[in-house]
C-alpha cells in the first residue's frame, strides 16, 4: 500500500490532533489572566474542549472502508487509531475533571502538558513509520515525566518524576537502538514495508529477532509489563494521584496500541517467536503483579501492582495473535480505563481528606459517604472481573482468545491469578465498611462527581451492553489482520 498524495481533505483526518494543540495554546494564554479570577474555569474549559474534540473526531476523522496511509506514510488512518483516540480523549477528560478537585493541579501548564501528552498518544496509535513512532512516544512521555514531578514542593513527587524520566529514557534509548537495527536491516522506516524488504534481502531471522527484542524493551516499559515493571509502584506512589491514574490507563493503552501495530504489521514472519515472548511477559506480569500486590499497605502501590497484573491479562490477548485477541485487548483496555481512573479518583479524594494513603485511611468510607464507597466497591469488583461489570467481559474475551489460539496454559494461569487478585480486592472492600474513628462526611466537588458518574455508568454499561463497543473493537482488530 502506497501513501496517498497530499490533499487538503487529509487535514480533516488529523483535525483532532490540530484541535488538541489549539486547545493547549488557548489554555496557556488564558492562564495568564483568567485563573486567579475564576478557579476551575480552565479545567472545565479543557474537559469540555476534549469532549468537543471527541465528538468532532467521531464525525470528521472517521476512517474509510480501507485503511489509508496519509502524510507521506507517516500516519495510518484506520479503526485502530480511531478507537484508541476516543479512548485517550475520554481518559484525558476524566483526568482533568478529577484534577479539578484540587486548585493546585489546574494551572495552565498542567493542563497544557496533559493535552500535549494526549496528542502524543493519539499519534502513537496512528503512527505507521518508525520516525513518527519514535517522536510520538517521546511526545507522550516527556510531558508525563514533568507531570509526575509536578508537585515541586513535594519531594516524593519530584523523585517520582526523576525516576520515571531516567527509567523511561533508558528504555527509550534501547528501543531506539532496536529501531536503528531494524532500519539498517530493511533500509526503510515504513512499518508496513519492513517485512517485505526483510524477505527480499533474506536477512536471517536471528538478526530481526534481536532488533525486535530491543524494541520490545521500550514497549514493555510503556505497558509496565514484568520484568519492565519496577518503575510503576514508585512512580505511581509519588506522582499526583490523577496523573498516576492517567499513567496507568491512557499511557498504558497507548503502549498496547503501538505494541499490536508493530508486532502484527511489521513482524508477521516472526509470529511464533514473538507470541512466545509476549506469552512469557504476560505470565510473568500476572504472577508478579498479583503476588506483590498482596503485601502492599499503601493503596497507590497496591493499585500499581494490580495495574501490572492487568497488563498481564491484556497481554494474553496480544499473545493470541488473532482478531478475537486484539478485539478483547481493546475492550479490556476500555473497561480498565474507566475502572482504574475511578479507583484512583476515589483514592485521591480520600487521601486528601485523611492525609494518608494507607489502606486504613479507607476505613469507615461506607459511613462517610455511602455512594463513594459503593463506587469504589464497583470498581474493585470490576478490576477483579466479577459479572455483570465490564472487567468480566474483558477477561472472558482475552481468555477465550487464548484458548482459541491453543494457549490453554496461559488462560489457566490467568484464571488462577485472577483469584489471587480477587483476594486483595476483597481485603480493600472489607476495610471500606469497617468502623473508623473519623467519620466526617466526604463532600466531593461537582467536577469530581461528574467524572465518577461517567466512570461508573461506563463500567456498568460495558458490562451489560457488550455489542456496540465490541463491534468497534472487532473493526479495529480487522484493520490489523
Amino acid at each position, binding site marked *: 500500500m502506497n501513501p496517498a498524495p*497530499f490533499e487538503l481533505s487529509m487535514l480533516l483526518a*488529523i483535525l483532532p490532533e490540530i484541535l488538541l*494543540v489549539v486547545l493547549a495554546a488557548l489554555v496557556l494564554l488564558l492562564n495568564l489572566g483568567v485563573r486567579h479570577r475564576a478557579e476551575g474555569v480552565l479545567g472545565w474549559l479543557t474537559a469540555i474542549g476534549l469532549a468537543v474534540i471527541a465528538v468532532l473526531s467521531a464525525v470528521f476523522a472517521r476512517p474509510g472502508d480501507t485503511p489509508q496511509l496519509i502524510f507521506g506514510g507517516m500516519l495510518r488512518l484506520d479503526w485502530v487509531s480511531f478507537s484508541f483516540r476516543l479512548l485517550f480523549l475520554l481518559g484525558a477528560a476524566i483526568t482533568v475533571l478529577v484534577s479539578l478537585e484540587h486548585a493546585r493541579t489546574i*494551572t495552565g*501548564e498542567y493542563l497544557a*502538558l496533559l493535552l500535549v501528552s494526549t496528542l502524543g498518544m493519539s*499519534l502513537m496509535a496512528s503512527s505507521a513509520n518508525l520516525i513518527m513512532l519514535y517522536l510520538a512516544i517521546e511526545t507522550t512521555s*516527556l510531558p508525563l515525566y514533568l507531570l509526575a514531578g509536578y508537585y515541586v514542593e513535594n519531594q516524593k513527587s519530584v523523585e517520582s*518524576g526523576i525516576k520515571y524520566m531516567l527509567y523511561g529514557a533508558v528504555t527509550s534509548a534501547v528501543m531506539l537502538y532496536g529501531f536503528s537495527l531494524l532500519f539498517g536491516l530493511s533500509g526503510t522506516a515504513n512499518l508496513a514495508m519492513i517485512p517485505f524488504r526483510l524477505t527480499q534481502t533474506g536477512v536471517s531471522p536471528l538478526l530481526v529477532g534481536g532488533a525486535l527484542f530491543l524494541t520490545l524493551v521500550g514497549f514493555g516499559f510503556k505497558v509496565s509489563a514484568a520484568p519492565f515493571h519496577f518503575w510503576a509502584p514508585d512512580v505511581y506512589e509519588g506522582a499526583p494521584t490523577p496523573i498516576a491514574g492517567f499513567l496507568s490507563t491512557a499511557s498504558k493503552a497507548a503502549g498496547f496500541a503501538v505494541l499490536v501495530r508493530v508486532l502484527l504489521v511489521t513482524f508477521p514472519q516472526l509470529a511464533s517467536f514473538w507470541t512466545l515472548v509476549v506469552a512469557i511477559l504476560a505470565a510473568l506480569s500476572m504472577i508478579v503483579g498479583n503476588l506483590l500486590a498482596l503485601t502492599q499497605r499503601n493503596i497507590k502501590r497496591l493499585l500499581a501492582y494490580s495495574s501490572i497484573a492487568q497488563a498481564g491479562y491484556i497481554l494474553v490477548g496480544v499473545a493470541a495473535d488473532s482478531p478475537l485477541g486484539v478485539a478483547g485487548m481493546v475492550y479490556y483496555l476500555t473497561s480498565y480505563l474507566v475502572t482504574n481512573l475511578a479507583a484512583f479518583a476515589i483514592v485521591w479524594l480520600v487521601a486528601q481528606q485523611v492525609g494518608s494513603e494507607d489502606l486504613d485511611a479507607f476505613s469507615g468510607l461506607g459511613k462517610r459517604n455511602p455512594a463513594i464507597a459503593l463506587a469504589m466497591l464497583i470498581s474493585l469488583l470490576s478490576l477483579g472481573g466479577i459479572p455483570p461489570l465490564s472487567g468480566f467481559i474483558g477477561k472472558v474475551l482475552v481468555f477465550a482468545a487464548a484458548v482459541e489460539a491453543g494457549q490453554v496454559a496461559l488462560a489457566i494461569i490467568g484464571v488462577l491469578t485472577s483469584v489471587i487478585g480477587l483476594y486483595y480486592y476483597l481485603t480493600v472492600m472489607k476495610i471500606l465498611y469497617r468502623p473508623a474513628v473519623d467519620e466526617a462526611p466526604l463532600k466531593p466537588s461537582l467536577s469530581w462527581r461528574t467524572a465518577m458518574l461517567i466512570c461508573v455508568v461506563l463500567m456498568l454499561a460495558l458490562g451489560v451492553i457488550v455489542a456496540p463497543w465490541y463491534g468497534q473493537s472487532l473493526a479495529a482488530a480487522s484493520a490489523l489482520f
Partner: protein
Amino acid sequence: MSAFQIVFLLIALLTLFSALMVVFARKTIHSAFWLILALFGVAATFATLAASFFVVIQVAVYIGAIAILIIFTVMLTRRSMEESGDQLLPGWGWAALVVLIVFGGLVFMLLQWQGIFQPPQVLTAGGENLENLGMALVMPDRYVIPFEVASVLLVAAMIGAIYVAGDHKKRS
C-alpha cells in the same frame, strides 16, 4: 591499511576512551568534560561518513546546548555527592554481567550480517543533499507532521521545565 582507515581508527579510539572516562571518572565535572570529547569524536565520525550537516548540528546541539547545560547543572548542584566514597551502585556486579551479555549478543548479531562488510557505494556528485533534507522536512508528503510535532514537543518541554525549576516562593 589505508590512510582513511587509520584516521577512522584514531577517531574511534578517542571516542571510546572518552566514553570510558565519562563512566569511570571520579568527579562529575570531569565526566562532563570527557563527554564533550566523546561527542566531538562522534561528530568526527559523522564527517567521515560524509554527513557534514550533522557534524555541524552535533557540535551545535549536543556540545553547544546539551553538554553545556549539563555542565551548568553540575556546577549548580556542586558538592551534591561525596566524591571520595563509593561511586558505584550496590549490585553493580549483576549490572556488569547484563551489559556483557548485551554486548556479546549485539556483536554476535552484527557478525551474522553480510551486508555491512561490503565497502560503501561511491556517492554521486553533490553527495550529501542538504537541500533535499530541508525540503523533505516541510513537505506534506514527507516529514511535515513529525516536524510540527517536534516543535510542539519542544515548546511543551520548555514550559514544563521553566515551571518545575522556577521560583516557587514567588508563585504561592
